[in-house]
């Protein structure tokens, strides 16, 4: 017989396990119940008691009431910008985080209208049908539709948000996955989550353009299970990113032959694209052959190593602004108070801040200096004012896994 509170949504448990990258056993230990109990909650055979729900919500840092909210419709299967070694749990975590982005946008979307979606439509159902020419045309179509001209794009994140994309960028702790994207059927708009872990503005622009490639080219393609198919879709999104950031005509005209790493370094700052990505683009355009590409990569590794390039700090990572502006607007208009946001969304302040691009602790209140509770009242000096004294009690919690 089913016990516990009414309305507990097992899918929420599944989602939070993924979002926090916890196993059932880990969660059970943290909550102080047996793994089989968590298993029963998960399968819907049982619901937690009110007190246990409080504990459960506390350890995963959501509101207890959040567990009673039905999970909104899923997005289209997300496409990940990742290498093959990315762990299944890491993918699950990011997928759940992307669902939260969708939920935040949905909740805020009750009060505001977001920019109109303006993404060129393609109807490919099989990656094998997509040619290089299709990709180049699609990338150019984006530039034309968004009036970006044929030169460097000042801000790729802004270009995406201008086109109606809900963009989030947060540190994920997963080095192998640089981003993911999906279409939200409820919002009827695309979602992109970029990993901020590498802190590299050049790579981040390419990641955003790569996700745009997936959104344009692969919207109607079922989730790839075969590795070759996934690899091909990744290659196509890469090609799209190159074509979008470095249009053939204008980029090629600025290339001096023979191509050297130093000449590309100068162009890196202008175009906001890494030398490595430019080498790949030159090969895609047939300006250099496979041999020259290998030689350039060999020299690049010998001079700079495999992971960094000179001038990587020349461009700060672009930041999303739409969700942050929405929250600012709602607060400014008095529609939603700062302290009401977490309650409204059911998520913790930290999660909302990370996914909405808000500064750390923005939602905790305006006070930068936390006053400790007074243990002994001291008499006010005469004429020192009669305003109310505010004080916060800081709880010192046990050192556990924190979210």
């Amino acid at each position, binding site marked *: 017989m089913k016990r516990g509170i009414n309305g507990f949504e097992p899918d929420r448990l599944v989602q939070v396990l993924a979002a926090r990258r916890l196993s059932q056993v880990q969660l059970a230990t943290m909550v102080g119940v047996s793994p089989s109990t968590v298993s029963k909650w998960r399968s819907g055979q049982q619901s937690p008691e009110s007190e246990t729900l409080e504990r459960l919500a506390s350890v995963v840092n959501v509101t207890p009431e959040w567990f009673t909210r039905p999970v909104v419709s899923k997005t289209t299967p997300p496409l990940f910008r990742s290498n093959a070694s990315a762990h299944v749990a890491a993918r699950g975590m990011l997928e759940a985080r992307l669902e939260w982005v969708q939920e935040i946008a949905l909740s*805020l979307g*009750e*009060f*505001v*209208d*977001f*920019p109109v979606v303006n993404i060129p439509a393609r109807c490919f159902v099989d990656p094998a049908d997509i040619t290089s020419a299709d990709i180049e045309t699609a990338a150019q179509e984006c530039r034309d539709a968004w*009036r*970006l*001209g*044929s*030169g*460097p*794009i*000042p*801000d790729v994140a*802004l*270009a995406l*948000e*201008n086109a109606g994309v809900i963009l989030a960028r947060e540190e994920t702790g997963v080095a192998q996955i640089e981003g993911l994207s999906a279409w939200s059927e409820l919002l009827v708009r695309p979602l992109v989550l970029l990993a901020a872990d590498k802190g590299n503005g050049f790579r981040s622009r390419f990641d955003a353009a790569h996700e745009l490639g997936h959104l344009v080219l692969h919207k109607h393609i079922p989730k790839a299970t075969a590795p070759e198919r996934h690899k091909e879709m990744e290659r196509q999104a890469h090609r799209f990113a190159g074509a979008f950031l470095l249009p053939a005509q*204008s980029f090629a*005209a*600025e*290339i*001096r032959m023979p191509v050297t790493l130093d000449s590309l370094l100068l162009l890196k700052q*202008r175009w906001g694209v890494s030398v490595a990505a430019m080498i790949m683009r030159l090969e895609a355009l047939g300006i250099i052959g496979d041999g020259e590409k290998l030689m350039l990569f060999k020299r690049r590794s010998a001079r700079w190593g495999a992971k960094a390039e000179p001038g990587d700090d020349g461009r700060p990572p672009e930041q999303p*602004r*739409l969700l942050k*502006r*929405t929250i600012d*607007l709602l607060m400014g*208009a*008095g*529609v*939603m*108070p700062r302290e009401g946001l977490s309650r409204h969304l059911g998520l913790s302040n930290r999660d909302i801040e990370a996914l909405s691009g808000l500064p750390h602790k923005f939602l905790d209140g305006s006070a930068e200096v936390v006053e400790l509770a007074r243990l002994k009242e001291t008499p006010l000096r005469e004429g020192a004012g009669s305003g109310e004294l505010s004080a916060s009690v800081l709880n010192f919690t046990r050192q556990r896994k924190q979210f």
Partner: protein
Amino acid sequence: MSAKSSKSIQKLLINSIPRELVLAVEEALEAAAKIAYESTVMSHPGHFANELGSTRYFRTNEAFFEVLAAHGASPTPLKGNELVVGQVGGFKIARFNVRVGPWYNARRSRRRMALVQGNEYIAELVQGSLFESQQQVATGIAFFVAEFGEGADPRPLDILIAVPAPGMKNWLYCESISKFLQGYNEPSQQDDLATPVLKASVKTRKDNEGGMS
């Protein structure tokens, strides 16, 4: 010369000379240098440098003439050692080859020196009202300069576009073609549309409530 005036001259050139024409001249000068090298490489070592120099001159002139003609830039006829000069917008365009180092050779041609006097207008702009006057049509002459190394090279080390001051003792503008071309593709002025708008129903409700929810 300040970066601002350099940028302004670049803008004048870009407004007058189509990008396609610049790319075509670059290609033509490269190709002519290669043809000249290949046709003289077997010359007697005692003649080689002279033969290469004069062959380069003629082949480059021919290639330059063809490009100007193909782009409707009304080139002056090919005739002996005479300079080929084209016209695009308010600008005359011509060419010369130099060795890397100071461009003393550039002042050797009387015709070139005469043409350069036409750049008084640009020089005045640089020194004076700095392109603020929009009434006058920009006129002047710009040169495509193929710069060769000390040895016998099959291709120029660099191809530049240069606007000399009258007297040709200094240069109002001088930039590699590859860098100059960037001016045709400046980053666009990006609109910022990433702005949410309060729904009309929410606005009305707030107005009626006259306070926070």
